[in-house]
């Protein structure tokens, strides 16, 4: 006690205590940096644990390349792209529930123009239009959401919830309750996304790796990326520092929607079809993966690498549940429980409050 006060009396602490009564953390810069990087890796131990559990359940299958790549990762590719999209939106301080509808709506309308049996808008359009039309409608949805949120100052939650319902309805109307199937033969891009393999891995996995790679570089090391964090962290301060806040939000929401539209096309490729319920219910998993991965719901915090580990953890858990032969009737309840446990683990290992 006396030694502490003596040192303090002689030499004021370098780091001042903040006025709120909460002490500022001290430590050398290099330590802090390492610590920040470590937080990104918080989900690695749980992922390893799940891998071990999966291996112990079925050692012959689980850790084989064909199982991990074709049964686990391939089916998480769509989810991963959506999580990337939602992570961007959450970091900029908004949220987008309608992403899951964009997943179905954008490819559905593009495919409809090509294979639709009506002569609406002079259909059939050539098959190559599917990709650009899908992305175009994705962007359109994002820009519309941004317009309502930024210009009309409506709540992002309510706007995108309404859009979720609206787009789902449109998709039902377009697809007509049935399924547009056997698309692989008619539309090359869907076939490519579904069946091409590069160096032994489905192209969708490569796309996810590439997207996250680009995303991590952009968010970490470009002005545009850092503005997303600044706007999400404190829009007023970002504006006073000369960042064009509205534009950042517009562009981020549009990019997220385009990513969702593209994810929808990947999903169509995996199914070889566009169904009326494509994407239905995915948004809950998207949020779960993002939050488990350390993305904060109040904006400005979290990393894409963290979000990616969140997807991986959820995907592995899901496949372990299947391997463990959990009753299909119970799997949803178990899955919900697992998400809760994963949230708690993420909270404990990362030490960050999730609000």
């Amino acid at each position, binding site marked *: 006690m006396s030694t502490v*006060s003596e040192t303090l009396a002689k030499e004021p602490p370098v780091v001042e205590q903040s006025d709120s*009564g909460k002490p500022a953390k001290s430590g050398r810069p290099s330590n802090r940096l390492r610590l920040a990087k470590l937080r990104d890796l918080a989900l690695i131990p749980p992922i390893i644990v799940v891998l071990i559990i999966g291996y112990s359940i079925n050692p012959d299958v689980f850790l084989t390349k064909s199982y991990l790549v074709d049964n686990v990762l391939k089916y998480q590719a769509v989810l991963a792209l959506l999580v990337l999209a939602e992570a961007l939106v959450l970091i900029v301080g908004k949220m987008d529930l309608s992403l899951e509808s964009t997943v179905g709506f954008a490819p559905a309308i593009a495919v409809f123009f090509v294979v639709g049996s009506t002569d609406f808008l002079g259909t059939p359009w050539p098959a190559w239009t599917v990709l650009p039309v899908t992305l175009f409608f994705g962007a359109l949805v994002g820009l519309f959401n941004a317009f309502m949120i930024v210009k009309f100052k409506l709540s992002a939650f309510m706007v995108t919830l309404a859009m979720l319902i609206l787009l789902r309805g449109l998709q039902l109307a377009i697809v007509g309750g049935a399924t547009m199937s056997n698309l692989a033969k008619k539309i090359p891009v869907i076939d490519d996304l579904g069946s091409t393999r590069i160096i032994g891995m489905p192209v969708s996995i490569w796309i996810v790796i590439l997207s996250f790679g680009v995303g991590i570089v952009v968010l970490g090391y470009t002005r545009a990326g850092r503005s997303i964090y600044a706007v999400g962290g404190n829009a007023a301060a970002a504006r006073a520092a000369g960042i064009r806040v509205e534009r950042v939000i517009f562009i981020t929401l549009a990019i997220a929607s385009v990513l969702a539209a593209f994810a929808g096309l990947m999903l169509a490729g995996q199914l070889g079809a566009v169904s009326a319920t494509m994407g239905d219910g995915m948004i809950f998993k998207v949020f779960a993966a993002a939050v488990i991965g350390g993305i904060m719901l109040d904006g400005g915090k979290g990393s894409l690498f963290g979000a990616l580990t969140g997807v991986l953890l959820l995907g592995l858990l899901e496949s372990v549940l299947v391997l463990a032969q959990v009753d299909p009737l119970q799997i949803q309840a178990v899955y919900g429980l697992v998400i809760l446990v994963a949230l708690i683990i993420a909270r404990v290992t990362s030490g960050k409050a999730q609000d």
Partner: protein
Amino acid sequence: MDTQQPLVQATGIVKRFGPTVALADGNLTVHAGETHALVGRNGAGKSTLVGVITGLLKPDAGEVRFSGEQGPALGDRAAWRERVACVYQYPSVVKELTVAENLFLDRQPRGRFGLISPSRQRKQAAELLDAWSVPVSPDLPAAELTVEQRQLVEIASALSLGARFVILDEPTAQLEGRAITRLFDKLRTLQDAGVTFLFISHHLSEIYEICQRVTVFRDARHIVTDTVANMDRDKLVAAMIGEARGLVQVGADRPAVPDTAEPVLELAGVTVPGHVTEVDLTVRRGEIVGVAGSAASGKRQLAEALAGLRGRTGAVSVAGRKVRPGTVRAALDGGIGYLPGDRNIDGFVGGLSVAENATMTIAKKLGPAGMVLPGKRDAAARTMIADLDIHTSGPDQPVGELSGGNAQKVVMARTLASDPEVIVLVQPTAGVDVRSKESLLGAVDEKTREQRGALLISDELDDLRVCDRVVVMVGGRIVAEHTRGWDENMLVAEIEGISEHSV
């Protein structure tokens, strides 16, 4: 010790947060009926001490006694609230509820069937407000209260719980001159009625005005307690900063700006609808021009318009070039650096690092093709940290973890980063301690010695003393202008609009 036990006595309080010692030796003795000042720099341990004597923090060692009795158990909030109350700088009322509902939160008077009786609640609230002569309607939504009214309501609420010891945490920080006078009158009345206050403030003059005794904390420990009569200003400051030398009067040695100096900022007929009318003003190179005025004078809105945050008409030129109105980018590119008036609102992004915040205005200079290279950014930040003496563990520390004075220095760094021709500063020293104040104003002084000019918007006399020239705004117009060496009373009278030559 005299026969009467002190109302509050904290002895040997120690509090650690992890490795940081927030309070090494906290002692405080407050006698019934006095107004006691608690002063110290940011980080001296004042907030921690307040946390301990309000029962919100558990000390690692030491004890708190009220009138000689041991303080209640930590969990017994009701018992604590009967003994001590704290009015914080930031509101602790529920904005969506009325004043009456706030006063009786969780102890609402019941009516028939045990349900809450709104009429009885309103009546009791009115009686309570009346008893302490707080001129506020009980039906007013708390969101519509002024800072002054909100503080009085919080004090009345505390008194109604039985507490006769009230801690005021920087109560004057957001008040303007006349409101401060009214608050002090009220405090004196309450003091006569037997209420004891612990008064925390960075404004030393207020301590001499209202307090009888003062306790100084420094570096997490109690330094001295004495009557204000025995502690003159120099002694007080010396106790706070722990050095024999007092504070330098920043700017006292500024060279006179020659009449031939080139104008660097020219305002011609600048109007901000609803706030500012037809302001003409020139700042020359090497000159700091202060803009004083009350909250309603439009001085802040003028600054925001110059920074591009508000629309305006009229012409603004920097070094002879016109600046486009209405966008922050245009103002930045035109050479105007801006320091916002409330750092917690639009000064910094708390979750981002010192380096990111400080370089936010110059991101395009940190790498090619829209890239931001962390090495370059941190190097730039290190220079600024050294330049402005920012106390931080490094460029990577989130600004949200810094003390008020250091966070403000980061905002200052951001303002200066773009190497602006003109700096526009709004209340640059609000809520920072004396030493930080000195280094912030010192930075403004140093950066404007030669080429740059500065417009310093403030109602702090200490800030305005640095200025080469001070203009006074009333009702959106400039009504007076003074060169260095103005008379304090005259300036205050003009700011309040009560001097004879005001419009």
